[in-house]
């Protein structure tokens, strides 16, 4: 036992993430040019889009984890689904905040009720509901199965949210970089890609740590249960009478 949830691998991953963040700041704030239309506000792009995409990926991991858990009852996938949803919620929160700030600058309002924003807000509330189920005071296995069903239902919402700009004509702009010849300047494209990589690294780094903490929490719960059982057994052996514990 090292007393921490880090290992050599996560330290390297963490160092890479932090170095990447520094590089992202450099590229996003200094090296990349202003946009012709949006001016300085375009720099929001390098946080807004990567956090959104990584958050969606995180929720798909949660959906996949829920399905595998319901199928195989594997604790590993249960914890992965839980950890991924938590980090996804934080990233989606960052997406919403950065989007609101960007919207204030380029649309003039923090919030508008178009399809993309509405579905994203619903997704956010839905994930908060999932995390609330995760905190329900009940037996762990039952809670995990309930959470897995709720996590499964997260799937359709995420898909609708992801395709909202394609299905409805909205104020929010459509995808820019999935086309073959992106209409975006080279260094801006590079910065955006760097942002994706950095936030993906951040997600992986946090996910591993969160996973380990949750895993330890489960072990502590098990130990507590074992200890309580042993106590009861020894009581029964000592006097034969069951004394209520203080």
């Amino acid at each position, binding site marked *: 036992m090292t007393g921490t949830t880090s290992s050599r691998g996560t330290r390297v991953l963490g160092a890479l993430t932090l170095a990447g963040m520094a590089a992202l700041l450099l590229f996003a704030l200094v090296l990349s040019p202003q946009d012709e239309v949006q001016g300085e506000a375009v720099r929001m792009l390098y946080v807004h889009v990567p956090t959104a995409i990584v958050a969606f990926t995180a929720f798909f991991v949660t959906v996949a984890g829920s399905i595998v858990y*319901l199928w195989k009852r594997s604790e590993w996938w249960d914890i992965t689904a839980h950890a991924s949803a938590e980090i996804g919620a934080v990233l989606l929160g960052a997406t919403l905040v950065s989007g609101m700030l960007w919207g204030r600058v380029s649309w003039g309002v923090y919030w508008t009720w178009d399809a993309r924003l509405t579905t994203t807000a619903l997704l956010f509330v839905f994930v908060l509901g999932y995390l609330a189920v995760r905190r329900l005071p009940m037996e762990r296995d039952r809670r995990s199965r309930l959470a897995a069903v709720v996590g499964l239902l997260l799937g*359709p919402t995420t898909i609708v949210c992801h395709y909202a700009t394609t299905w409805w004509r909205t104020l929010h702009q459509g995808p820019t970089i999935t086309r073959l010849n992106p209409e975006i300047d080279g260094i801006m494209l590079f910065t955006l890609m760097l942002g994706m990589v950095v936030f993906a690294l951040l997600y992986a780094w946090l996910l591993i740590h969160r996973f380990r903490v949750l895993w330890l929490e489960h072990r502590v719960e098990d130990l507590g249960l074992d200890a309580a059982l042993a106590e009861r057994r020894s009581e029964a052996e000592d006097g034969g009478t069951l004394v209520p514990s203080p």
Partner: protein
Amino acid sequence: MFRDAALIAGKDLRLEARARVALNQVAPFALLVLVLFAFALDPDRGVLDQATPGLFWIAVLLSTLLAVQRGFSVEAADGVRDSLRLSALDPAGIFLGKVVAIGVQLLVLEALLLIGVVVLYDADPGGIALLVPTCLAATVGLAAAGSLYGVLSAGLRVKETILPLLLLPVLAPVLIAATQAFEAGFDDRMGEGWRWLGLLVVFAAAYIGLGLLVFDTLLEEA
């Protein structure tokens, strides 16, 4: 499966016919919501008129929460849930029965509310040919999603607070589509309404399908 569904729906509706909780408590609550909206949005300035479809469906949504909670709390006492599980009834049948029972109560409620908005808000139910199928499709969706989350939260100590948090975001698409369809129906712009009705049908079918698949697991765990 359908025989089991009929049994469960019959049982729940018979309970309702004798206890009259939905009729004596939920329906007056829904009408009360309509009256409160009228107080909040000054009826003289025409706001109420424009907002009528949305207010109607908000009232239905809030009543759905109550109906779902009632529908599953009748089984909370005396270990009725366990007896239900041991009864060898098909879980899919139990789910369908619950959907039918909650759906029938909601339909009666919607009829009352529709009279309510015509009388209180002076709405014009011109496109009744669109309003009725909209009510039907939306009700199936509400009852199906409601039954899923209802059984999920029924056994929990925090059921009153967790059910709205989980259920309302899921029901938001119903609110949007049904409101749009009703707007089209009240304004006699039927063409637009049919598309929204299609969305409601897809939603209802999706949740009925999901319910048939996962109700078994939920009934066992909650």
